[in-house]
């Protein structure tokens, strides 16, 4: 059995000993995603704590047939981070969406991320055609909605949606289909 899935199964059974290994395994994967979306260390720490607490309490909802543990935790973390950043945006109403370049050049956390983002350029995402990379990065890394992306790129909404779908399909192929 997948080690992550086994830890989730143990947590679902109420095994507290499974929580720390699960956290240690997945928190370093999830934290950069959250940090990039919320762009504030304290917010990211809060979101991370919420996400892992929800995972402990909702471990029984994980269905191995529906997806990998990685997808399960990543989707939860992204969802929480996006909720957080959108709530902040609604409150301030002074949100200036970062352009893809600004995300790359001025990531939250400063210098520590610079090298990793440079590494990003050799990833499947970096190898996508520019129009697809652009929309996916704005959605994935900055947490913008399709409408916000359309406004920012001054593209029709339908175009943005199509590019996202196409980009994800290309990435899927790049990763070799199955995860």
């Amino acid at each position, binding site marked *: 059995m997948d080690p992550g899935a086994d830890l989730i199964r143990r947590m679902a059974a109420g095994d*507290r000993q499974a929580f720390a290994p699960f956290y240690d395994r997945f928190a*370093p994967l999830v934290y950069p*995603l959250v940090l990039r979306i919320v762009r504030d260390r304290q917010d990211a720490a809060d979101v991370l704590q919420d996400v892992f607490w929800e995972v402990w309490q909702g471990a029984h909802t994980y269905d191995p047939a529906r997806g990998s543990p990685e997808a399960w935790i990543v989707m939860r973390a992204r969802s929480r981070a996006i909720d957080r950043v959108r709530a902040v945006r609604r409150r301030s109403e002074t949100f200036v969406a970062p352009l893809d370049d600004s995300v790359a050049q001025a990531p939250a956390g400063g210098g520590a991320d610079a090298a990793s983002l440079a590494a990003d350029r050799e990833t499947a995402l970096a190898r996508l055609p520019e129009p697809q990379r652009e929309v996916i990065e704005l959605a994935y890394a900055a947490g913008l909605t399709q409408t916000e992306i359309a406004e920012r790129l001054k593209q029709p909404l339908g175009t943005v949606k199509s590019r996202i779908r196409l980009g994800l399909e290309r990435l899927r192929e790049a*990763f070799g289909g199955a*995860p």
Partner: protein
Amino acid sequence: MNRDHDAYETLASVYALGALDGDDLAEFEAHLARGCERCAATLSASEETIARLAAEGPRRTPPPEVRRALLQRLEATAPRRERAAGRSLWLPWMLGMAAAVIAAIWVTGGFIAARYEARLDRMTREAAEARERLRQEQDGLRAELQRYAGVIELLRDPATRVVTLRGAGAAPEAGARLVWNETRGGQLFVTNLPPAPEGKAYELWTITGGRPRAAGVFQTDASGKGTHAVEAAPGGKPVEVFAVTVEPAAGASSPTGPIVLASAK
């Protein structure tokens, strides 16, 4: 239909990235809720792709406070018996509590003892007083009972008569009955005779052949009642008149004060 569904699969991709909004979001969620397996599969594939995207990104250890906070939260919700690590804290805590309780009992005990010893002293004293009072009452009742028994005994004797004394002089309201037996003596019951003045007492006289003879002194209570046991007159001569006078408290050998009660001849 196919084209419509193709649109939904586009929405599934955008939804997986969390970028769907407005009417599209509501529409897709409704569609998904109706149990579209194709869209569920597309969503699932998109989610796996995003997870792979994350996996090829940087790893970064979160601030240690997050881990610490989560583990504390987990510990706080653990059932008590599972807190093996916490048990070491329980013992000193319980010992501390036990010591505090013992100290409190000791101090309180001393306080209560001091307080109750004084009370017990007082209660013992009060109990002794009550016992003495009861003893006196009992003695009084016993004497009274003997007196009544004696009166009843006297009344069984055909020779016994009941003499009525009436108030006179300063005590017109007073009255008395004397159960009298010439050879055995008798018992005087007085009513409505006010207590004698300070230093004075009432004295009963038996008068035979015009000669009064002292037959004892008595007092009456606040209600004007009094009883007095009377000895038989020596010589056995029948008493002709009974009279009560006010005399010095120690009594007199011959009447000196005014008559307050007297029997009719």
